[in-house]
C-alpha cells in the first residue's frame, strides 16, 4: 500500500470513529487516535520524509486536506454532542412550585394610606407630618376646644407621665396648627398619621389607630370647593360609583361642620343605605385667629377620616385588631 492509500484508509477510519463517538470523551479519544501526538496521522506524517522529493508536495497536500476534513467533522460533532449533553435528562415538572425568593408585602394600612395620599397629591396636596406627642394647645385649645368644652368628652386622651401635661394626639388635626403656625398661607397639605384614644381594644377599637386629613387654606375657599375635593378624593379611593352626602354636624374647629356619608354597591350589599365615612368643615375663624391668619382674608376647609375604616371596608376585614396582631398569614394577603 502506498502512503497515499494508507492515508486514505486512515482518514476513512478516523471519520468513521468520529461519527460513531457517542459522547465528548469518546470523541476526544477518537480525535487522539487520529490526529493526536501518537495518532495514526501523526505516524503517517513522519513517513513523509521517506518519500521521493517530487512526490512529497502532492502527498503533503493530501495530508492537509484529509486533516482539514477531520477537523471540520470533529468541530461539528463536538457541537452536536455538546448540545445533546446540555439537554435535560428528565422532563421538567412545570406544575411543581418554583424556587421562590419570598418577596414581602406592605401592611394593608400602608397600602390604603398611600392610595389616599396619591389621590390627594394628584390634586396638588403635599404630605405633612407632626409629632405624636402633643400638648393641649395644639391638640385642643388652638382648635377652639377649650378645657371644659363638652367636645373634649368624646376624646378620651392618654397623658404622658412627665412634666408639662404632654399627651398623645387624639387626632391629626393638631398638625393643622403646627403647619399654619410655621408656614404662611396658602396651605394645601394631607396629613396621614397615628392617633390615640383611651378606648379598650375590641373588634372596632384599638388605642392606636390611623387618620388622614386634608387641609386647604387660600383666598375665597368655599363649601363648594370642599365638596368638590372630597368627591374627587373619594371617587379615587372608593371607586367611581360612589355617591356622597353631606349633612350638618358639629366639630369645634370647623364652622359650618359637615359629616360625610357614602354609598356604593358594597354599602348596599351590607344592607345599609348610607355609611358614615368622614367629617369635614370650613376652618373656624377662631382657629385662624389662633395661628395668626386673618379670617377675613383667608378661608379654608379641612376634612379627615379613619384609615382603618377604609381598609376594613375595602378588604372586608371585620376586626380592627387584625391590623396590629401582624399575623403573617394575614399580612401576606395584601
Amino acid at each position: 500500500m502506498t502512503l497515499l492509500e494508507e492515508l486514505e484508509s486512515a482518514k476513512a477510519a478516523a471519520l468513521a470513529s468520529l461519527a460513531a463517538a457517542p459522547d465528548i470523551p469518546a470523541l476526544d479519544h477518537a480525535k487522539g487516535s487520529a490526529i493526536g501526538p501518537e495518532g495514526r496521522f501523526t505516524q503517517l506524517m513522519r513517513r513523509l520524509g521517506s518519500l521521493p522529493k517530487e512526490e512529497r508536495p502532492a502527498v503533503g497536500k493530501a495530508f492537509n486536506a484529509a486533516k482539514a476534513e477531520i477537523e471540520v467533522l470533529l468541530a461539528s460533532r463536538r457541537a452536536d454532542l455538546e448540545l445533546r449533553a446540555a439537554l435535560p435528562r428528565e422532563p421538567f415538572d412545570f406544575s411543581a412550585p418554583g424556587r421562590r425568593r419570598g418577596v414581602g408585602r406592605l401592611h394593608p394600612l400602608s397600602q390604603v394610606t398611600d392610595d389616599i395620599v396619591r389621590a390627594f397629591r394628584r390634586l396638588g396636596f403635599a404630605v405633612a407630618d407632626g409629632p405624636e406627642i402633643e400638648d393641649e394647645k395644639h391638640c385642643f385649645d388652638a382648635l377652639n376646644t377649650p378645657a371644659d368644652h363638652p367636645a373634649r368628652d368624646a376624646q378620651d386622651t392618654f397623658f404622658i407621665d412627665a412634666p408639662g401635661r404632654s399627651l398623645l394626639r387624639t387626632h391629626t388635626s393638631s398638625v393643622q396648627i403646627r403647619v399654619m403656625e410655621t408656614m404662611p398661607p396658602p396651605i394645601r397639605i394631607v396629613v396621614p398619621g397615628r392617633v390615640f384614644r383611651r378606648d379598650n381594644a375590641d373588634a372596632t377599637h384599638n388605642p392606636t389607630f390611623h387618620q388622614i386629613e386634608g387641609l386647604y387654606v387660600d383666598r375665597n375657599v368655599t363649601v363648594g370647593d370642599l365638596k368638590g375635593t372630597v368627591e374627587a378624593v373619594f371617587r379615587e379611593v372608593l371607586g367611581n360609583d360612589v355617591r356622597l352626602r353631606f349633612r350638618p354636624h358639629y366639630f369645634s374647629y370647623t364652622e359650618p361642620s359637615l359629616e360625610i356619608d357614602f354609598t356604593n354597591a358594597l354599602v348596599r350589599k351590607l344592607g345599609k343605605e348610607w355609611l358614615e365615612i368622614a367629617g369635614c368643615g370650613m376652618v373656624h375663624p377662631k382657629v385662624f385667629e389662633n395661628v395668626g391668619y386673618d379670617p377675613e382674608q383667608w378661608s379654608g376647609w379641612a376634612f379627615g377620616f379613619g384609615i382603618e375604616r377604609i381598609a376594613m371596608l375595602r378588604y372586608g376585614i371585620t376586626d380592627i385588631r387584625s391590623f396590629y396582631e401582624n399575623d403573617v398569614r394575614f399580612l401576606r394577603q395584601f
Partner: protein
Amino acid sequence: MKVTLNWLKELVDFDWTPAELAERLTMLGLEVEGVEARPAEFEGVVVAHVLARDPHPNADRLSVCRVHDGQGERQIVCGAQNFKAGDKVPLILPGASLPPKAGESQPFTIKVGKIRGVESHGMLCSAGELGIDPAAIHHANEDGLLILRPDAAVGQPLAAYLGRPGADVILDLEVTPNRPDLNSVMGIAREIAALTGHPLRALATAYPEVPDAPPVSRDLAVRIEAPDACHRYTARVVRGVRVGPSPGWLQARLSMVGLRPINNVVDVTNLVMLETGQPLHAFDLRLLGKDDGGLPTVVVRRATHGEDFTTLDGVTRKLGPEMLLIADPTKGIALAGVMGGANTGIQPDTTDVLIEGAWFDPVGIRRTSKALGLRTDASYRFERGADVEAADFASRRAMRLVLELAGGSASAGVIDAWPVQVPRKEITLRPMRVRQVLGIEIPEEQVWRHLSALGLEGPLAGSGAGSRWRVPSWRVDLKQEIDLVEEVVRLHGVDKIPSTPPRGAKGSHPFDATYDVWMELRRLMAGLGLNEAQGQTLVSGDAARRVTPSVLSLANPLSHDMDVLRPSLWPGLMDVLGHNMARRNADVRLFEIGRVFQVGDRGPQEGWRLGIALTGARHPAFWSGADRDAKCDLADAKGIVEEVLEWFGLRGVTFTRQPEPTSFLIESASIGLGPKTELGQIGQVQPAVARRGDLRDPVLLAEINLDVLLARRNVARSAKPLPAFPSIQRDVAMIVEESVTHDDVLAAVRSAKPANLEAVELFDVFRGRPVPEGQKSLAYSFTYRAADRTLKDEEVTAAHQRVVDAFRLSLKAVPR
C-alpha cells in the same frame, strides 16, 4: 335623645312618614340613629256595651249576646258567667289577634265562626286573655270577663280606655354637644317648624290660682350666695298634693323614651325636662330647714371642703368648694344641677312640694359631675348650657301638670331670683360672608327667612354692612357671624351647594419628600423578603425596659400591658413574633417603620425607626436543595441591614460588637457611622427570652435610626467606566486564631499596600478538623487589575506576596 312621632306632632304639624322625618332631621344635622315602630296595644279591642244576654239554644254553659261596639250591633257567643246586660266589657273584633299565652308562640286571631250552630262576630275578653293584671288597672279580679267602668265610652279603643299609648314611632337622635336646645321635644319640634314653616304650638303653662292663695314668699325664701354659678333660681310651691302613681299615658310616655316612672310629682318634673330641656327638681317642702324667722329657706352656695352629702341614689359623697350646693340654713338638700338629696326628696306622704327651676353655670356642673363620676339627665343638660329664660316657663308647665295629676293648690306667684342677667347676643351677618363661605348666592330675603324661622329676631334697626340679629336664649351655640352662616346652610341644604372642581395653590411641606423615602423603603424591605408589620405604640413597661431603661410612661394607662410608649420597635416586634408562634407561624420575617419615644433632655422625644425581626426558615419552603432547611441567623439580619444602608448611600458604616451578652441579647453590635454617630443596633435574642414567646429558632433583631439615615442620606450617583483590561485572581486560605476578625484581615491587607488590588472577597470560613480547636480557616479571593494595561503575572505575584507576608506577620496566620 329619644322622642316619639306623636309627641312631636302635638307640637308641630308635618305630614312626613317616619322615614322622611328621619331623613329631614339627619340632613339638618340632627342625625337619626334609630327608628323603632311601636304598634298600639290591644289593636282591634274596643269597649262594648252588652245589650242583651240570652241562653245558647244548644249549650247550657254558653250564652248568645247582643252587644254594641260603637259602630253597630253584633251577635257574640260567650262562655263567661260573670256579666249581665248593661255591662261594659272588652270586645275583640274579627281579624284582630290576642297576645300569645305563655308557652304559645303564635297569637290567636279571631274569626267569624259558628259555635254550636250560632254565629259569633268577635269575642268578649277576660283580663287573662288580654294579658292584663286587673289589680294594676284598679279593676276587680273576677272569674270571667273583665268588667269595665260603667262610664266607659262605647266604641273607645281599649288602649285609650286604659290610658295606654296608641301606635307610635320612637326616634333615637344623636344630638351634637353644641346644641343643648335639641335635648328637648320642643327644640326638635322647633327645627321641624323652621323646616316646614308651620308654627310651633306652645305648651300649656296656665294653671288655676286660688283667689286668696297666700303668696309663695310666705312659704319660702331664696338666697343665692354664688350668683356667678347660679344666674337664676325660680321656686314655686304647691300644697296638698297626693303623691301616687302617674296616669297610664304619662308612665307610657316616659317608658317609651327610656325613663322609669316613679311617682306623679317626680314624673312631671322629668316629663317637663324632656319637653323643654330644662331640668327641674321637686323638694318635699316640710323637710326644708327654716331660717331664724321660721321661714323655710333655700341657699345656693358652694360646698365646703370635704362636706358630706347623700344624694337621692343613697350614695354619700365628699364635696369640694368648687361644687355648687342647694342648701337650707342647716344642710345641703341637692347637688345643684346634678342630683337631689336623699334628705328632701318626694316621699309617698309628701303633701307640700317646692318646684325648683334654675340655671347653673355649665363649666361648674361639668366639673362637679366629672369629679364625682355622677352623670344624670340634669347634669347632661346643664353642662351643655341650659336656656336661662326657660327656667320659669318650665316651672309653670310643671305646676300645671302637678295640679292636674296630683291635686293640691298653688301658692300665688313665684320666687324668681335672677341676679345675673346676660343680655341676648346680637350678631351681624354680611351677605358677602355668606357668599364667601358657601360659594353661592342666596338672596338676602331668603337668608332672613331662614334666620327668622329659627327664632332669631331681626333684622334689627341700625345695622350697617349687614343685617343685625338677636339670638334666642336657647341657642347658646350661636356666638359669631360664621355660626349664622352655618344656620343658613343647614336650612338651605348642603346638597344645594354645587361642588367645584379642585383648584388653587400647589401645596408644599418639608415632610412631603420624607414620606416618599419611607414608602420607597417599605418597598425595598418587601423586596428583601420582609412583610410589613404595624405594632402597637403602647406596650408593656416590663417588655420595654428589657430593651432600654429610659421609658416614657402614660399618666393614665388603660392596662398594665399597655402602660408605656414604645422606646424601640423591638418590644412590639417580639410580641408579634410570639403571637405568630402561638398560631404556629414559625417562619416570620418582618419589618416596621414607625415612631419610638424616649425621655430626652428637654422632655419627651420621638423619632422614626426601622425595625427588623427574623426567625425560622431562611428560605420559603422548597422541595430540593442542600440548604433548604437553613434557619435565619445573624448574617441574614446583617445582610438586610447592609442592603438598607447601601440604598441610603451610606459609606464607612461600622458594626461594633458588644463584648459581653446582655440580659436581652446573647450576641449584638451597635451600628455606627464614624465614631460619634450611632445608627442602630443588631443582635440575637437570648434564648431564655425567646422561649417566653415559645420561639425556638434563633430570633434576630435590628433597629436603625431613620432620622439619622435620612440626614446622612447620599443619593448622588455617578457612573464609572467599566474595566477595559483583564484581571488576575489570587486566592489565600489560612488558619488564624478565632479572635481574628474580617476587619483585622482587611486592616492587614491595607497595611501591605499591594499594588493594583481591586477587590478582596471572603469566600469561606471553616472550623473543625483538621483546623485545631480555637482556630479557624479563612479563605479570601484577591482581584488585581490595572486600569491602563494588562497586568503581568510576576507583578501580581510580588504584590500578593506582600499581602501573605502581612497575614503571617500581623495575624500570625498560617497559610494552607
